[in-house]
């Protein structure tokens, strides 16, 4: 512990709450409060109701939730496969090649996601790669955006992986593919798991690129929140936002439970 005196510790707690509550907790609490009310003109919301939730878990909103979940899961799995593959390949490259790969996978992070969305739209609106108007263009854009994060976190873990394990495996007569499946990937599992959680959360909240791409029959939840609040239905939008938040947190919780089980090493 860095601070030993009792007073100092209390002061630190107070400072932490002072920053944390208004910056992180309060905005989320406001959303939750708004989702349960029909009116908010004074300091506090009024007219408590569950009606918004009834609307948020039915019909179009429910379809948007499944759309978001399917998009995020597909994009995360694809990103994890591509990102891990690229990270392992980059590790085997020379220093120069590795730097090139790092730069390449930084691009989707460095470029604003609106630009990524536009780029994907322009690139896939013409045959032979005509994806515009299908759900696949949304999933593709999400995959491009989150692969960068998957690559980065797996790449950091690959570097930290002790080569002694692979070498021990090779000395025992294991082919490189066998070493990959039985030693390297299992040892990378905690990082893969963390990367999966990160990709999923990012994809669930993606709005700007999605806005440029989504077809009418594939509207993810963030777009629905945006359109709802844009039309002025602030409280319905809040309820949908809470549903989005809850769904994301639930999946992340499940993922982190798997991680605790996988990180016995």
């Amino acid at each position, binding site marked *: 512990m860095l601070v030993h005196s009792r007073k100092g510790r209390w002061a630190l707690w107070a400072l932490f709450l002072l920053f944390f509550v208004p910056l992180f907790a309060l905005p989320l609490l406001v959303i939750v409060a708004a989702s349960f009310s029909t009116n908010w003109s004074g300091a506090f919301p009024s007219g408590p109701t569950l009606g918004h939730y009834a609307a948020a878990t039915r019909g179009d909103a429910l379809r948007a939730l499944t759309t978001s979940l399917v998009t995020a899961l597909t994009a995360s799995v694809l990103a994890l496969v591509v990102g891990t593959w690229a990270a392992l390949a980059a590790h085997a490259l020379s220093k120069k090649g590795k730097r090139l790969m790092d730069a390449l996978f930084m691009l989707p992070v460095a470029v604003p996601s609106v630009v990524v969305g536009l780029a994907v739209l322009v690139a896939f609106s013409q045959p032979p790669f005509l994806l515009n108007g299908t759900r696949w263009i949304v999933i593709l854009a999400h995959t491009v955006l989150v692969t960068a994060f998957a690559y980065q976190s797996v790449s950091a873990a690959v570097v930290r992986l002790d080569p002694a394990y692979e070498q*021990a495996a090779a*000395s025992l*007569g294991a082919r490189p593919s066998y070493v990959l499946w039985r030693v390297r990937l299992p040892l990378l*599992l905690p990082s893969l798991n963390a990367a999966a959680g990160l990709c999923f959360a990012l994809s669930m909240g993606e709005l700007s690129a999605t806005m440029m791409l989504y077809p009418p029959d594939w509207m993810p939840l963030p777009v629905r929140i945006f359109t709802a609040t844009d039309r002025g239905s602030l409280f319905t939008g809040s309820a949908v936002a809470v549903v989005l938040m809850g769904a994301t947190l639930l999946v992340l919780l499940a993922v982190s439970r798997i991680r605790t089980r996988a990180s016995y090493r």
Partner: protein
Amino acid sequence: MSSGIRFDGVSVAYGSATVLDSLDLTVEPGEVMALLGPSGSGKTTALRAVAGFVRPVRGRVFIGDRDVTELPPHRRGIGMVVQQYALFPHLRVADNVAFGMKAQKVAKSEIPGRVSEALEMTGMAAYARRYPRELSGGQQQRVAIARALAIRPGVLLLDEPLSALDAQLRSGMLAELARLHRELPEVSILYVTHDQVEALTLADRIAVMDKARLQDCGTPQELYRSPRTEFTASFVGNANLLPVRVGDGQVRLGEAELKVDTAGVASGVTATLCVRPHLVGLGEGTNALRGTVAEVQWRGATHRLYVDVAGQRVKADVRELRQPPGLGESVALHFAPEDAVLLSAGVAADE
């Protein structure tokens, strides 16, 4: 099954730095060869060249009659144990030991028997269901040895296998390794270490390495009793190396005239006299050296005296003294003529 190792002019370089310089060395089938040297001497590089983890820029490596220089590690048929054990943390002890056999597609029915046989041999049978992190350092090392032996390699490579263990465990494991080798006489062992005790205890022959080169090679007795180079003499047994002027049947160190065997060294040159500290006695006697005490270290059973004689610091290990000499006191040391070796290598003509 039994196969030796042969280095044929093997050089390894990283960029412009040569870390192993044309090594020629043969490990006979069933022999224990220790590669002994300080860190950075190239001994681990030599072992890794056999394992296939470094690629020689020149020379060939043979295992048995097979030229393995171009083969990837997994096709060389070696067993290897490294300092940090490298047990797979996500696998239980039994699965760690079975790993090599599964990778080599040994018949499924055969694996459990061979796993328990290997664990039995290293005394780890009771720990088969544990994970590596639940074992102590010494136990992990036993599992690592069992894992390497389970694939029945013709060649076992040990890279400083005991240096992560404490002194007591180390001497226990040394005895274990000696026993294992008696039980598996056909396995050739290449044992890399910087610890001369390990090398002297375990090895049939020792190859002494320094500065990327092989300095000396011979049985432990040869290297210890009659070292050929100053480096061997000082690294194996930490000998006193005294510059002396060679006469006829005697040598001179300052004023002192010492009787030693001068066969093979011309009279009138400067040579190096090598005397082991534990063979130097305190008090008058044959070959007396008089000097002043510069330092006294009490090591329990022995006293290590550092005595300045004619500008040279002489080390003497004597049985614990009831009354050790004080610093600056004048004392006499002596040694028997047959306990000294005049090093023929590195003899320089007197200028």
